[in-house]
């Protein structure tokens, strides 16, 4: 049986479609995981800015290791934590392309701490999408630098004890202190309102890059229902009730040129 391709009925306005930047396929992400939402937001923004054909995306080591499979633009796969260095190498030789990294919290705030700090300090014209899900998703739910105090993980089975296992790292606050940063904000993906705000932030982050203003990062509070041992709905609520108080949402640095911008 052949199925005719759906045609757009007359007199109806198209309000929703798969972004051109996104591949038409299922992802390997767990049900209720916000990685997929973050991918879609990036794809929508790049479509809207007409940047798809100029973009090179850099996948991390983490659950998003295959991110390049889901986008229709060019992509590479970095070593664990090294995406900002790899992005630097690409952007420096191709300064007129749009280069972004997509990194988890283990990738960015633990093993890749030096690379992210220095990329920001140098004001690399790259954009970073930082997925903070307070855990190492891919390797089975171990403690991340962003794990909350008392949070149980597979490597903090009695809950993160700050006396011996340290405190959560707030990357947006840290990076906002660096002069090379043009746009540093934290948003959350736990409900529709926040997702809309996250998209706007991603847009401004790419605007910072194409306007040559400096380094930009959007930290996105995200879920990992699988390793948190929660249903998707519980996970969204856990972000709202536990992560947001530890990781306040907001703008930590916005270059003056971006403050006036309406997107």
């Amino acid at each position, binding site marked *: 049986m052949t199925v005719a391709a759906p045609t757009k009925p007359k007199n109806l306005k198209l309000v929703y479609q798969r972004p051109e930047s996104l591949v038409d396929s299922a992802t390997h992400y767990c049900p209720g995981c916000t990685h997929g939402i973050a991918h879609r937001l990036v794809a929508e923004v790049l479509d809207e800015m007409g940047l798809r054909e100029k973009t*090179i995306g850099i996948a991390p080591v983490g659950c998003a290791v295959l991110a390049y*499979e889901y986008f229709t633009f060019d992509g590479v*796969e970095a070593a664990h934590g090294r995406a900002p260095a790899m992005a630097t*190498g*690409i*952007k*420096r030789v191709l300064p007129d392309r749009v280069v972004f990294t997509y990194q988890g919290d283990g990738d960015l705030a633990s093993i890749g701490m030096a690379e992210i700090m220095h990329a920001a300090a140098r004001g690399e014209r790259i954009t970073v999408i930082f997925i903070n899900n307070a855990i190492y998703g891919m390797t089975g739910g171990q403690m991340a630098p962003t794990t909350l105090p008392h949070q149980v993980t597979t490597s903090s089975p009695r809950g993160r004890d700050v006396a011996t296992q340290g405190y959560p790292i707030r990357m947006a606050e840290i990076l906002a202190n660096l002069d090379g940063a043009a746009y540093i904000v934290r948003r959350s993906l736990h409900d529709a309102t926040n997702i809309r705000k996250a998209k706007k932030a991603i847009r401004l982050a790419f605007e910072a890059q194409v306007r040559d203003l400096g380094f930009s990062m959007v930290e996105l509070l995200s879920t990992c229902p699988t390793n948190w041992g929660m249903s998707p709905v519980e996970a969204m609520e856990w972000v709202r009730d536990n992560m947001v108080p530890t990781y306040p949402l907001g703008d930590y640095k916005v270059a003056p040129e971006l403050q006036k911008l309406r997107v």
Partner: protein
Amino acid sequence: MTRELMKGNVAMAEAAIRAGLDAYFGYPITPQSELLEWMSKRMPEEGRVFLQAESEVAAINMVYGAACTGARVMTSTSGPGISLMAEGISYIAGTEVPAVIVDVVRGGPGLGNIAPSQGDYRQVAHGAGHGDFFPIVLAPSSVQEAVDLITEAFDLAEKYRTVVFIVADGSIGQMMEPVSLPEPRAIQREAPDWAVTGAEGRPRRTLTSLYLQPEEEEEVNLRLVRRWREAEANEIRYREYYLDDAEYVVMGFGTAGRVALSAVRAARAQGIRVGLFRPVSLRPFPYQAVRELAEKAKAFLVVEMNGGQMLDDVKAAAQGQVPIRFYGRMGGVVPFPDEVLDEIHALVSEPPTLDEDPRARWLDNMQRRMS
């Protein structure tokens, strides 16, 4: 062609620029820093990319990124930096993108010292990173040869989509010699058909070293092995000196080979029929040529500035066909020609036996020398 007096590190840097280098990323470390410093001055003058990275880890990943765009790219460092780069080198190999790395070797292990050494032989020729891959490794014994090999290194890296190392011990980086530099090559090249440059008017391209299906990874592994066999067939390089009628063969690469050449010349003047075999490509190693010499020679003397790292490759090549004596200086000590000449005399007067362990006799001799 006019010749200029240049320091090895500077000459290598300038040669790379003339070879059409698009981008350099590095981190300071003695005895290689003049290379980075030269790049910091010259690359911006040429409108090309220079960046001092925050670490060798970052530097090699910047190289990796730039290499993925098809750019001609390099870094330079010394042993401790190679250790940090191992991860990135492996990713570069797994992704099959070209890059050139200069290792100006110093004394080690650990922090060691900043004196010339050949202690990284095994690290680059047999290791260089995790997983199954072979880098091409070239070892110059003079500043001029370093310049010539740099130019070639970029072509080889691109031809085989591989990492190419130039292993220059600290003395080659630091000494000044007259050199003639090649004419500058044009930098404008078309991006290769695998390069990630933005999917403008074409389907997307991705570059990765991730192959989740074992069968798929195996296919990549086999491709790398096949490409390596091609390199083995075409890219073996060595120099022979006075070997035509030689009864005894001295073997050494880089500065050890150069010192040995002086000793061989002195021995020849004394009527000893000795020659020198100097591997230039440490990988692919000239196994066949060494094997053929093993069948003809009375004995080998292997001279190195390490504890016998190439010795093991020579032994593997010789397959027990020839007795071998070994002389190594370590820790950043460069042997004098007279020491090697003494070793040649000893090779003739008290020949090693086929079944003896060359390291054992060498260690005994070193012990006696120290006490």
